[in-house]
């Protein structure tokens, strides 16, 4: 360890020259770039935050729209159910009415047929019984309207009783 005063001077000078050169040619540029990057990052972070906010809002909007669509679909389904139920009821009612109408008609037809058949039978039997009677009595009975009326009356009584 030996103190050499010029060494001290040289080292001071060397350090100062190094400091001046570096801060002039290197560090100022480096700091500027770092500052630019910092700003860039800040800006990008800001942008990202903004984009995220937008995305959240958009998703919310979509959710709302989806909900609306779902509700609408629900209401449409309900509506159609109601409508179809009503239709079914109406058709059923119609069918019932139709069926009862048909049934009533058929009943009337049957009654008519029956009446007609009874009428026919009655006239048939009247004629036959007159023929039988005339044969039994060996007497020609004129098939007059009066006699026939008589027999008819009788038969009607019988038929009414039966």
């Amino acid at each position, binding site marked *: *360890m*030996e*103190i*050499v*005063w*010029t*060494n*001290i*001077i*040289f*080292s*001071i000078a*060397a*350090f*100062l*020259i*190094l*400091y001046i*050169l*570096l*801060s002039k*040619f*290197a*560090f100022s*540029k*480096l*700091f500027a*770039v*770092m500052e*630019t*990057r910092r700003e*860039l990052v800040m800006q990008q972070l800001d942008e990202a935050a903004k984009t995220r906010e937008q995305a959240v809002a958009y998703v919310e909007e979509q959710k709302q729209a989806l909900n609306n669509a779902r509700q609408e679909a629900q209401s449409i389904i309900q509506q159609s159910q109601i409508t179809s139920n009503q239709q079914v009821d109406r058709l059923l009612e119609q069918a019932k009415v139709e069926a009862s109408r048909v049934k009533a008609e058929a009943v009337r037809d049957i009654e008519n047929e029956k009446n007609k058949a009874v009428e026919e039978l009655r006239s048939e039997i009247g004629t036959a019984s007159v023929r039988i009677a005339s044969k039994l009595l060996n007497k020609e009975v004129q098939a007059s309207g009066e006699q026939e009326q008589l027999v008819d009356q009788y038969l009607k009584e019988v038929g009414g009783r039966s």
Partner: protein
Amino acid sequence: MHAMPKIMLGSIPIDLSAVLMLIISCTVVFVLVMLSVRNLSVENPSKLQNFMEWVVEFVQGVISSAMDLKKGKPYISLGLTLILFIFVSNLLGLPFSVVTEAHEPVTVFGHVIEATRNLSHGDHVELLWYKSPTADINVTAGLAIIVFVLMNYLGIKLNGKHYFKHYVEPFPIFLPLNIIENLAKPIALAIRLYANIFAGEVLITVILKLGILSIPFLAVWQGFSIFVGALQAFIFTILTMVYIAQMTIHEEDAH
């Protein structure tokens, strides 16, 4: 012990080894930094630029631990130069050193190296040419003097009358104590750095005397010396910042 290759230019002594090592050290730092800022890019920094930015951020951290970073901004360049210069200087002497053995007076540039001037026949002197510049107390003293001058200048400039008032606080009788305290700072800085690095190099020389056995010890010690070199550069820088902060920032609550 190795001798200093010192020549006399008239009455001015010049230590060729220190001059050589300062030039090498400054060149290495300068080339390293210039390479790292060669293709500066905001979005796609090179590896070296990333490294240099990491160093900048490290120094910013050091400064912000001593003072408000807003006030400390002008000192970032200083801290960077200090830490890089000292770190590189500490490491330069680790891989090897260059020693020449002189048996008779050696002349360089027409001047006789002082240590070899009075060599009698049969004697020899070992001249140490290549070493860590920080293993020389003169270099560390130079750095410490820069810090000392800077901190007092900044104290007077930025702190005004509080700087002088500080010398007579808490009582005027503390004046000599405060002056000693102030003077002790650069001395401690210089000696701490010098002693750590010098001791490291001495120990390397001692270990080398073991011959082939020295390899594992040397590996361990060199690794540790890298750590010590980084640590001392860090300590020098942070102490510089702490001293500047002490001198320049007047705390209102303290009075």
